[in-house]
């Protein structure tokens, strides 16, 4: 065990101070909670602890602080700590910028027949990924593209893969998209809808923790990351933004949520305003270096 993990700050003989839990959660998954939410977070941790059959906080803390989590304990905890709020075409200006500017530009500059890659980072239950897919297929019905959706919550990914949405959920999809890409399911009278197969087979989902380095190192043309950084600690924001920036290919764009401007500019990208939306762009050709 590392020195940091064994140096547990305890509030009393038996318990763990809320700050220690907060620090551990930030360290392991980057999630930072406002002070007002800490009692709730501690409640969630305790609930998970009891479900695991562990009585003492110190024991559970030690288990969670252990490097590498073979027990799946973090997965279970993250399910309960994350917010799965999302919707189709959330923040429409971002999607307008994609439809009206970014996709046409990419189509013009990419070689014909080239495959576009779009990534919805922190896709939750998949609505953003499917929204991206709708824009991409509407832009070029025969164009080849893949939309990747990733989230830290495996439960959310499971729901995303089912591609099953309620009547209220789909109400934010523009009418002409709704008619083309949604099909009602008539199995139990709940009035649910699913996405046409033409779209679902171009959308892939995976579980990914943005603050943990892993093998997902593709080069994407468009990276969407909306309302994800707001849950992260400043350090985790920097780490996640660096990772997002690194996955933007030449000529690609990174679009963050409104108000999610990172403290540090995404490395290697230049800020641009696309159709009124602030985005980050990797130039096709590197600017000439100025010799002094």
């Amino acid at each position, binding site marked *: 065990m590392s020195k940091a993990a064994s140096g547990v700050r305890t509030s009393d003989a038996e318990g763990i101070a809320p700050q220690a839990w907060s620090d551990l959660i930030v360290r392991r998954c980057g999630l930072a909670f*406002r002070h*007002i939410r800490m009692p709730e977070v501690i409640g969630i941790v305790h609930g998970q602890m009891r479900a695991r059959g562990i009585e003492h906080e110190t024991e559970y803390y030690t288990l969670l602080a252990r490097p590498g989590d073979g027990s799946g304990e973090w997965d279970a905890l993250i399910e309960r700590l994350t*917010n*799965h*709020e999302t919707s189709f075409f959330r923040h429409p200006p971002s999607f307008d910028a994609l439809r009206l500017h970014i996709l046409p530009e990419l189509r013009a500059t990419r070689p014909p027949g080239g495959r576009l890659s779009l990534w919805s980072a922190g896709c939750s239950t998949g609505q953003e990924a499917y929204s991206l897919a709708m824009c991409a297929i509407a832009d070029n019905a025969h164009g080849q593209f893949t939309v990747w959706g990733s989230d830290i919550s495996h439960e959310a990914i499971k729901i995303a893969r089912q591609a099953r949405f309620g009547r*209220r959920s789909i109400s934010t999809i523009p009418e002409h998209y709704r008619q083309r890409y949604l099909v009602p399911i008539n199995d139990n009278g709940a009035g649910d809808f699913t996405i046409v197969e033409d779209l679902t087979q171009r959308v892939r989902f995976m579980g990914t923790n943005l603050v943990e380095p892993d093998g997902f190192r593709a080069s994407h043309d468009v990276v969407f990351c909306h*309302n994800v*950084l*707001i*849950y992260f600690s*400043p350090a985790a924001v920097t780490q996640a933004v660096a990772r997002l920036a690194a996955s933007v290919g030449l000529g690609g764009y990174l679009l963050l*949520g409104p*108000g*999610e*401007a990172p*403290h540090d500019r995404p490395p290697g990208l230049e800020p641009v305003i696309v159709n009124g939306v602030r985005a980050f762009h990797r130039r096709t050709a590197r600017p000439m270096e100025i010799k002094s």
Partner: protein
Amino acid sequence: MRRSMTIKARQYMTLGFVAVLLAAAAGLAAWQLRSVSGQVAAVDASAQSAAKIAALGGQVGSLLAYERSYFLDLARQHPVDAALERWNTARLAVVTTLDAIEKATAGSAVTATRATLTKYEREFASLRDRVALEGLAAADPEGPAGEATRTAFTQLTARVDTLTADVGTQLSAGTAAAGAGISRGYWMIALGVVSAIMIAAIGFTLMTFGRVAADTAALVSVCDSVSTGDLDARVADLGDSELGRVGRALNSMLDRTARLADSQHERDQMQAALMKLLSEVSGVAEGDLTVQAEVTSDVTGAVADSFNLMIVQLRQIIGQVQAASRQISMAVGELRDVTENLASGSDDQAAQAVEASVAIEEMAASIHYVSENASSSATVAEQARANAEHGTRAVTRTIEGMKAVRDQVQETAKRIKRLGESSQEIGEIVELIGDIGDRTSILALNASIQAAMAGEAGRGFAIVADEVERLADRATEATKRASMLVKATQSETAEVMTAMEDTTREVINRSNIANEAGVALAEIQGVSNRLAELLQAISDAAQQQARGSEQVAKSMNEMSAVTRNTASGTKQTAAAIHSLGVLVDNLNGIVTRFKLPAAADAETPAFAQPRLVASR
């Protein structure tokens, strides 16, 4: 048996008969008891034999004791007659006992015992004879001489033991047989007594009931006749027995009945009217309210009339109940729809509340993020302001430095100008010196001429004049060079002046630019100040919003809890209404069993229609 005898008398007679039979049974029992007493005597004998056999063992034992006593006396030289006498007495007792046993058991075992006793006596006698002949020493009773005697005695005791066992067995068998005989005797007695009583009872019953049956048959035949309408039938005199009295009473009753028969016709008519009325109204019991009784002129007419009135009122009541029950049923149906809608609506509401609280949580996180960003932007703006201030100070210092440079440049220009003017004066002086040199040269020429004119006397003077001329030439030459230098100096000074003026202008320009930079920086400083203030305001506002959204999120959570409660309450209400519907259906089933005339519904007074306003 006489017919006039009462049943009681017959009973007494029977009791007497039973007493005779009991006496007979007692005689039989006495006879049986006699044989029982013989068997008891046999048992007694057996018991005595048993006592004797028990005595026999002791008696035989005493034989040996006296034998020993005899030989002891002999050995001590005491007189032996007394001992022998006692031995003989003992032998006699044994023989007597054996006789008694033989008498009691008639077994051959005693004969064998007797033989062994005789043998023992013989051996004992022969031992005594040997002692008398050969002395005690020669014929030691404990030695080989006494061997035959001991053997005989042993055989005797063994025989006695066998006898005892045999007789015991025989006795117990006899006793058991006797016991069985006794109990058989008792059974026989009991059987005799019981049989006697049974026979008596049967006889009595046959006698008594034979008579009673005959009397009863007579009574029954009269009753049969009466039941077929023959009121003239009468019972014959049956004597003073109880049935006779019944017969007389029946006869007198029939006499009175005959007198009453005349009013029978009236009663028949009334019964027919009643039956008709009953058949008319019997449908009401099954709920048929369409029936109506015919109002006749006879006594049932009034009953039918009031019955019809009652039916009309009942029809109205039932009609009202049916109408009300239909309305309730409809209202319940409507209510059920409403509550079901409500229940599903509150489920939706609960789900929406959860969605909303999740969305608000995200909003709160977003606002918090913006607030944090605004806060750090305010810090950045503050830094910018500080930097601008620093820049302004630097620019001010630069402008001041420029001013000093300009002043110095101007001062230098003035001095250089004065230098130019001085060199002008020098030039004039050099020119004057040149004139003087020219004139000195002419003077030297004049002086040499004069020296030549003076001849030899003037020879020395001519050398001086020559020297002066050379000096004058050199002076002229020098002033020419000086004049050239002065001219060059003047022209350079003029150039320097021009350059100085350019420099001064440049410095002034630069100062103006620096001044502008200073102004711009001051403006930046102001803007940064304003920016910092604005960002602080944004941060404050965002924090307030964050707090507000926390509150909203909290309220939202509470609202979802309330909604969940409401949903469960609504479900309970729906369930209650469902069971109400079942009850109303039951009620409907009950009241529709009543059959009303087709127009009855129209008669029903209209109820105020209950109205449910379903807000959907």
